[in-house]
């Protein structure tokens, strides 16, 4: 029987995968994907917990997360486009004009 803990473990695993992606990826686009992965991991957790408690709040939270992730993508991609226009690259290592 697949229980709450299994969902949570899966969620944690996906979250970790996303986190590693964020830490390791050099391409900004991939990095955004990785954050989406993390948010989706959270969604899984919320959905599972919501079911476990038989409470709608978790699902509501998940919906909000989806909405926010969408707007994040919208804003993020917009930024990426300007950035790409300006620099011609999306490699993280190329944006380090400000430091110290």
């Amino acid at each position: 029987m697949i229980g709450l803990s299994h969902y949570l473990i899966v969620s944690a695993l996906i979250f970790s995968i996303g986190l590693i992606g964020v830490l390791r990826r050099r391409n900004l686009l991939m990095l955004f994907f990785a954050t989406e992965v993390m948010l989706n991991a959270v969604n899984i957790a919320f959905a599972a917990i919501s079911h476990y408690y038989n409470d709608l709040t978790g699902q509501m939270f998940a919906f909000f997360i989806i909405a926010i992730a969408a707007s994040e993508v919208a804003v993020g991609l917009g930024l990426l486009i300007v950035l790409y226009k300006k620099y011609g690259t999306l490699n993280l290592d190329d944006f380090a004009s400000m430091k110290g």
Partner: protein
Amino acid sequence: MENLVYIALFAPFVGSMFAALFGMSPKQTFVGIIASSLLFISFAASAVLAFHVYTTGTAIHVTMMEWISAGDLMIPFGFLVDQVSVTMMTVVTLVSTVVHIYSIGYMDHDKSFNRFFSYLSAFVFSMMILVMSDNFAGLFIGWEGVGVCSWLLIGFWYHKEDVAREKNPSISPSWAANEAFIVNRIAGLGMLIGIFIIYWNVGSLQYDVVFADLPNLSSSVLNAAALALFIGAMGKSAQFPLHTWLTDAMEGPTPVSALIHAATMVTAGVFLIIRANPIFSMTPEVSFFIAALGTFVAFFAASMALVNRDLKRIIAFSTLSQLGYMFAAAGLGAYWIALFHLAAHAFFKALLFLGAGNVMHAMDDELDIFKMGGLKKAMNWTYIYMGVASLALAGIPIFAGFFSKDAIIETAFNEGTYVLWAILVLTAGMTAFYSFRQVFLTFHGAKRYKDEIHPHEMYKFVLIAMAPLAILAVIAGFFMGGFQTFVTKLLPNYEMSHHTHELIVVLTAVVLVFAVGGIWLAYKKYANGLKRDEKLENSFLYKLLANQYYIPQFYEEFITKPYAMISEKMWKDIDMKIVDATVDGIAKFLYKSGDKARAMQTGNLSNYLNWMAVGGVLLLIVAAISAMLA
């Protein structure tokens, strides 16, 4: 009578201020005259007071105003005219008056004539405060005041350059002035400590209160107080090991040497012992130490005088030696004899110095007695004066020194301190020798000075002014009996024991043999001109004496130079390299760690994200640790 006290005290002050008004203007003879007349007024007032005290036998005590009061301490400006202080006042004002008049002639050609009188009168004022004060703090005012005046006067010719010690043992007037001031400050500290001890044990600094309370004090307190006060006396009276400044002080104008460094200021130490005799008579150990040290200094200074070639330095050494005599007397309890010798010494020593001043004046400031000779003809009066003074100093009968010095030597015998007695007798012989060595080398024999020098006698009025001193140098001794009855109303009387009395003739004869022997020796050697003995002059002992036992060199090598070196080190190595560098080091450390820390700010987003992860781990670790600890 109270007004007279103030007149005696403040007349010199007025004179000083008056002269100071003209301090920066060219020479004005009337400045000297007014200053001298004011001093004479002061002398007259002192004399009247002396007469008053003598006749009535009561002291005059006035309190002018409050000076310092804090906590339980109350120090007034109070003045006490009793037998002891009135003696000092009279002696001081008398010698001062003579010296003032003398200076009008002596400083005739000096452009700072007015300034000189300002300083000189200020000195007398300080000296009067010193002797008249009715408490230890007031004494200290005068004590430091005379110190400053002495500083000003020794360094009177401040514009002279520093020269090597070989050329001039005192380096320069300003150097000698500073030395005198600093050495006196060392002693001043001792004096202050003495004052503190007295205050915290008695609760007052008034002489009468303190002396009345002495029986309640423990002997350790008394010893400490006596010792501290004596350290103060040692500095002012130039006792070993604080003696070097006195000979260097001869850099000042000669009248200064006569007044300050012979007759008055240097005797302040003796005066202190006499003034505070109730303390010292209760501390026999300290008193004996004083006597022993005094005897030692008497001999020690006389030995240096034997070979010195500097006219003024010889007299300075003799002053030192005579101060030793006074301390010996005071230490042995014969306070009135010490005071008597102090007064007699003031007269003949001032006379001697003033005579030396005449010689210098005649010789274009030449001081080397090896380069004089045969001045007798040109300077007859000076010769007589100096001869009289030297006879008095040597202790030849009928002259003042005979009575006073002999009494001291007898005291040493009377107390059973035969070693001291023997040394004092020997010193008496040495005294006679060096005094007459100087007289003969200066006035007798063939002339050894350069041809361009034309010796001439001093102004008439100067010679006349010196006369009172000469007369007193001769006759002062006859007042010894009267003096004894006068001052022993206040001071403890000191009488020779029966045994001593019986031997008095023998004792006197012994001293006389030494004195006359000394003169005879000097006559043999020097009366017919200078015959230099190379072998003797190159001998170790001669060199040791001529170099003052190398004590000034010792001080320079082991005190002055190391002090400068340590100071330099403290500044450059400790203050700059340790203390300050630590402060700057902390600042630099912070700055450097800032530089290191900013390295984390690479500007690379990937690093930033990693830092977030690291931070998360860090939080977990800290949380885990604190959870475990809790």
